C-alpha cells in the first residue's frame, strides 16, 4: 500500500495559484477542510466574546453594561454564531480534511461544489452581523434580537436584523446542503476498493448520518424562513391567527429542523470519540455494528420528536405524551453509544494525552447533559424547568460538553497529522483542566439558578440570584481565557514549532490517514489503496 502514498507530482501542481487566490479558488479537500476549521475557530472566538459579554452583563444585578435591546441581540448572535458559525463549519472541516484520507479517496467527489459550500459561509456571517455596522450609519436598529429560535410573532414584528438573519439562513442552508450532498456522494462513490460500508471508520459513518439529517431537515428551515419573510413584508398570514394562520406553526418548522440539528452537531463528534478512545485505550472499538445501528436509530428518532421543545406552547395531551415518550426513547440508542465507549476503554492500556482527556471529559459532561435532558423531556416537569436557566445549563452541557469538547479532542488528535508538529502536551493538559473547571463552575451554578426560578434571556434578575450569577460569571471568564491556550497551541504547531510528528502520530492510532506522512502531501491516494 505504501507505493500509493506518494504525491505523484500532480498534473496541475505547477499552475496552482498562490496566496489569497489559492484559498479562494482551491478545489483541494485539505485546503477546504483547513478553511472550514479556521473559519469555525474564528466564529468560536466571536461567539465566545458574545458569551463573555452576556456573563459580564449578568455579573451583578441592575448592571447597565448594555441596554436590554443590545443584550437581546448579543444572546441571539451568540446562539446563531456558535451553532451555525462555529460548530457546523468546524465539523464540516474535519469531514473535508479526513473523509477522503480515511476511505482512500483522491479528493471529495465534487471539488468545485466543495469550494462553493465553504465560501458561502463567510458571506453568511457577514450578512448576519452587518446590521451592527448599518446601525452606525443610521440604518435599522441592529442585528436580529429574537433569540436564535426566532419565534413568531416577535420575529414578524422585529427590525431589519431579522431579515438579514433570514437571508443568512438561506446562505447557510445552501452551504450545508451542498456540503452534505458532496459528503454522501464521496462516501458512496469514492471509497477505495475493499472499503466496504461496514469497514468505514465510525467518523465517516457519523458524517454520513449527519449529511442525511441535513438533507432531510434543512429545507424545512429554509421554507419556514421564506414564509417568515413573506409574513414580514409581503402581507401573508402564515403565522398570524387573524388570517387563519398560527404562530406555533413557526415553532413546528423551526424545531423540525432544530431538534435533528442537535444530532447534526453531535454525530460528527461522537464519530471523533470513536476514533480517539480506541487509540488511547490500545484496544479495538467495542460494538462497531451496535454504534452504526445506534446512529441510524438516533437519526430516525430525531426527526419525529421535535415538539418536546414546545411543551409550554400548548399542545393536546396526546401530543405531549407522544413527544415525551418518543424523546425518552432516544436515550436508548444514545446509551448504547455510551456503553460502547465505556466498554472500549474498559481494561485498556490507557494513557491520558490531551485528546483522550477531552474525550473522557466529553463522556462525563455530555452524560450530564443527556440525563438533565430526560428531566426536560418529561412533559409535566418541563412546565417548571422550561425557559429557566436550568434549560440553558442543560443544553450547554449537551452542546459544549458534547460537541465542543469532541471538536477540541479532535483538534488535538489530528493537529499533528495536519501540521506535522506536536502541540505542547503540558499546555494541552492545562487547557483541559481549566476548561473542565471553568465549564462546570459556569454551568453547574446555572442548574441551581434555574431550579430556583431564574428565567433565561433577561438582562437583569432578582437579588437572591446574585451570588450564583457571580460564580457563573467568574467561571465563564476562566473558561473563555482557557480557550486562548487552544489558539496558542494551534498557532504554535502551525508556525512549525514543536516536536515533528511521525506518520502514525499516536502509538495506538489506526486508519488510512495514519499511513500517510505528517503533514500529508497536497494530493493523496491519486491511486487508490486496496483494503484487505
Amino acid at each position: 500500500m505504501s507505493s500509493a502514498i506518494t504525491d505523484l507530482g500532480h498534473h496541475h501542481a505547477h499552475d496552482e495559484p498562490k496566496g489569497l487566490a489559492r484559498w479562494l479558488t482551491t478545489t483541494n479537500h485539505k485546503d477546504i477542510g483547513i478553511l472550514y476549521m479556521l473559519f469555525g475557530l474564528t466564529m468560536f472566538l466571536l461567539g465566545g466574546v458574545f458569551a463573555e459579554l452576556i456573563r459580564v452583563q449578568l455579573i451583578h444585578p441592575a448592571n447597565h453594561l448594555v441596554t436590554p435591546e443590545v443584550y437581546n441581540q448579543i444572546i441571539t448572535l451568540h446562539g446563531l454564531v456558535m451553532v451555525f458559525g462555529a460548530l457546523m463549519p468546524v465539523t464540516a472541516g474535519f469531514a473535508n480534511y479526513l473523509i477522503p484520507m480515511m476511505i482512500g479517496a483522491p479528493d471529495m467527489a465534487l471539488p468545485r461544489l466543495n469550494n462553493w459550500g465553504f465560501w458561502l459561509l463567510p458571506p453568511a456571517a457577514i450578512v448576519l452581523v452587518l446590521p451592527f455596522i448599518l446601525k452606525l450609519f443610521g440604518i435599522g436598529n441592529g442585528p436580529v434580537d429574537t433569540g436564535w429560535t426566532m419565534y413568531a410573532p416577535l420575529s414578524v414584528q422585529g427590525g431589519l436584523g431579522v431579515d438579514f438573519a433570514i437571508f443568512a439562513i438561506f446562505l447557510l442552508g445552501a452551504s450545508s446542503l451542498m456540503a452534505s450532498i458532496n459528503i454522501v456522494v464521496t462516501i458512496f462513490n469514492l471509497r477505495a476498493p475493499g472499503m466496504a460500508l461496514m469497514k468505514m471508520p465510525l467518523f465517516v459513518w457519523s458524517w454520513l448520518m449527519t449529511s442525511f439529517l441535513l438533507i432531510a431537515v434543512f429545507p424545512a428551515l429554509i421554507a419556514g424562513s421564506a414564509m417568515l419573510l413573506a409574513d414580514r413584508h409581503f402581507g401573508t398570514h402564515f403565522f398570524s391567527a387573524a388570517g387563519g394562520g398560527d404562530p406555533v406553526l413557526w415553532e413546528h418548522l423551526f424545531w423540525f429542523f432544530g431538534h435533528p440539528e442537535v444530532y447534526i452537531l453531535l454525530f460528527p463528534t461522537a464519530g471523533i470519540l470513536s476514533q480517539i478512545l480506541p487509540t488511547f485505550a490500545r484496544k479495538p472499538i467495542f460494538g462497531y455494528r451496535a454504534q452504526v445501528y445506534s446512529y441510524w436509530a438516533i437519526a430516525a428518532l430525531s426527526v419525529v420528536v421535535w415538539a418536546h421543545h414546545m411543551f409550554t406552547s400548548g399542545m393536546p395531551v396526546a401530543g405531549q405524551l407522544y413527544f415525551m415518550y418518543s424523546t425518552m426513547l432516544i436515550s436508548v440508542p444514545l446509551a448504547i453509544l455510551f456503553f460502547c465507549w465505556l466498554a472500549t476503554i474498559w481494561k485498556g492500556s490507557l494513557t491520558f494525552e490531551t485528546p483522550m482527556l477531552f474525550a473522557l471529559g466529553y463522556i462525563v459532561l455530555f452524560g450530564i447533559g443527556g440525563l438533565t435532558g430526560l428531566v426536560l423531556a418529561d412533559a409535566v416537569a418541563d412546565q417548571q424547568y422550561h425557559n429557566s436557566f436550568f434549560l440553558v445549563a442543560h443544553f450547554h452541557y449537551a452542546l459544549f460538553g458534547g460537541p465542543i469538547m469532541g471538536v477540541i479532542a479532535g483538534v488535538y488528535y489530528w493537529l499533528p497529522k495536519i501540521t506535522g508538529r506536536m502541540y505542547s502536551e503540558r499546555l494541552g493538559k492545562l487547557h483541559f483542566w481549566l476548561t473542565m473547571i471553568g465549564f462546570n463552575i459556569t454551568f453547574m451554578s446555572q442548574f441551581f439558578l434555574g431550579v430556583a426560578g431564574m428565567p433565561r434571556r433577561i438582562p437583569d434578575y432578582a437579588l437572591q440570584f446574585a451570588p450564583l450569577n457571580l460564580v457563573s460569571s467568574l467561571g465563564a471568564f476562566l473558561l473563555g481565557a482557557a480557550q486562548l491556550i487552544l489558539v496558542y497551541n494551534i498557532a504554535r504547531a502551525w508556525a512549525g514549532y514543536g516536536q515533528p510528528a511521525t506518520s502514525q502520530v499516536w502509538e495506538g492510532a489506526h486508519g488510512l490517514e495514519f499511513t500517510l506522512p505528517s503533514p500529508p502531501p497536497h494530493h493523496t491516494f491519486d491511486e487508490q489503496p486496496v483494503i484487505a
Partner: protein
Amino acid sequence: MSANTAATTRRYFVPKPSPYPALLSFAIMLLAIGLALRVNGYPAGQWIAWVGLASIVFALVRWLGNVIGESEGGFYHKWEDRSFRLGMIWFIISEVVLFATLFGVLFYERNVSVPWLASLDTHFTPWPHFADAWPTAGPLGKSFATVNPWRIPALNTLLLLSSGATVTRAHHWLKHDRRGALIFWLAATILLGVIFLVLQANEFYEAYTELGLTLGSGVYGATFFALTGLHGFHVTVGVVMLTAILVRIVRGHFDPSHHFAFEAVSWYWHFVDVVWMLLFVFVYWL
C-alpha cells in the same frame, strides 16, 4: 491532465482551482444584502441586488461553461459520471423535502390550526363567529373566490404530463442518435413548459384582479401562492435548463452513451411534473 491517463489509470478527475464558486458566493451575498435592504424600504438595496444578480449569472455561466468544456473534452468517465448522478439524486431529494414541508404546512393549516382556531371557547376568543372551513381567509381576511380546478389548472396538468412524455421521447432519440427528432421533441417540451408558465401567470393575474385571491388572503392565499409560486419558479428554472440543453444539442454536444446533463435536466423536469400532480390534487381540487 490528458484524457487518456484518466482513462487508463482509473484516476478520478479533480478540476483545477476555479474562481467561480467564491465569486458566486459573494454575488449571492450582494443579492441577499440588497434584497434585505430593499424590503425594508432602502431603494439603494435594489441596485446592490441587481449587481449581485448579474454577478450570479456571470459566475454560473462561466462555471457551467468550464463543466461543459471538461465534459466535451473527455475528462469525465464512468466514475465521475456516477458522482454527478448521485449528486443530482440527492439534490432532488432535498427539493422533495422543501416541497414536502410546504405540503405539511397545508396539512397543518387545514387539519390542525384552522379547526382549533374555530373551536376556541367563545368566551375567550376575539373571534367567536369564526367557523372551521377551507378555503378560509381567517377571521379578519377579505373574502375571495378560488381558482376553478377544471379549467386552466386541468389544462396545465395535461400540458405538463405531455411535456414529461415529450422529454422522454427526446431522450429516446438521443440514445438512437437521431438529432432531428431529438431537437423536435426537446423543443416541444420547452414549448409546453412555456405555455404552462404563460397560463400560470394569467391565472395569477386573474386571481388578483377578478377572484380577489391574493397573498394577503389569509392562510389559503399565502399557502396557495407559496406552493404554486415555488413550483412555477421550478418550472422556469427547468425551461431555462432545457433551453441550455437544446442549444448544446444544436451545437453537436452529447452522444448516445454520454449525455448526463440531459438526463439530469429531464429528472428535474419529471420531479417538477410530479409535484404539479400533487399540487393539482391537494391545492386546486380537494
